[in-house]
């Protein structure tokens, strides 16, 4: 299956999900990752509203009456004895981040291509660590994100309404 290369251990930096912000007037959310043991270094990722809500629900450890999509993925993993080892933000192309989900089952390891939003939503539920490669950290945008994020701070989103269909 996967021909995706798993980055080397020493090239990974661990991050955690710090918060989910709502961007005013758009249907997007910003997932703010913070460096483990170093809250000063943050790494924002723009995602869609539904994707952001899937992460927000897990961050707030909200239990929904019915399993959401990423709960189902976790449920599949549990049924099949697949361990979600870790997720890695491993590449950036044209301002789009690429993630890998590293899984294993009875010693058989696989690396699955994913959007960062799916990878992070799953990582919070697994739970498993989230890493960003040094290469991606080097190539990230250099806009003054901190100042810009500070402006958004007051708009920290509430828990999304969960609609069960």
């Amino acid at each position: 299956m996967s021909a995706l290369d798993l980055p080397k251990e020493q090239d990974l930096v661990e991050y955690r999900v710090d918060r989910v912000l709502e961007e005013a007037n758009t249907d997007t959310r910003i997932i703010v990752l913070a460096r483990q043991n170093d809250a000063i270094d943050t790494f924002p990722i723009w995602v869609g509203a539904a994707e952001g809500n899937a992460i927000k629900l897990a961050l707030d450890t909200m239990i929904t009456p019915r399993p959401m999509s990423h709960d189902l993925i976790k449920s599949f993993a549990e049924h099949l004895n697949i361990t979600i080892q870790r997720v890695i933000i491993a590449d950036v192309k044209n301002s789009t981040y690429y993630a890998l989900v590293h899984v294993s089952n009875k010693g058989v390891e696989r690396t699955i291509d994913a959007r960062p939003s799916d990878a992070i939503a799953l990582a919070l539920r697994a739970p498993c660590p989230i890493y960003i490669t040094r290469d991606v950290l080097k190539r990230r945008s250099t806009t003054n994100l901190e100042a810009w994020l500070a402006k958004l701070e007051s708009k920290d989103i509430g828990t999304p309404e969960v609609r069960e269909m």
Partner: protein
Amino acid sequence: MITQMQVKGLMFDPYNNAYIVVLRDEEHSDMLPIWVGKSEAGAISMSMENITPPRPMTHDFMKSLLDAYNAKVISVVITDLSEHTYFSKIHLMYEDSEYTVDARPSDAIALALRSNAPVFANNSVITKQSSEELEQWLENLKPEDFGKLDS
């Protein structure tokens, strides 16, 4: 008793600001409308229209995980309706064993379409043709009303 259903289309329900996935049996005598959210409808619509997004969407990733270990979706069954909520089960085959996993119908259908797996409904769940209003609404719909999302 279960009946195989075809995923016929998606409609927007402006009254509830939600989408309706329409399932019909092969003789077109029974119909099952299931209300789903916008992103869930998008996941179903993409698969119905054979759109391959540049990046894997959530259910594409879900299928990748199953594919990585040769787990197969055998079927999906809409099993129950309780307090306006439909319940469903996904049947998986993995290493000669069958697994049954609880899911929302929207996830189950989105995954079934990507896996070419049949969708069934428990007969007790299938809405009989009693709802004439909905029936008429469906008849008045033009083909181009189906399977389109404005997002």
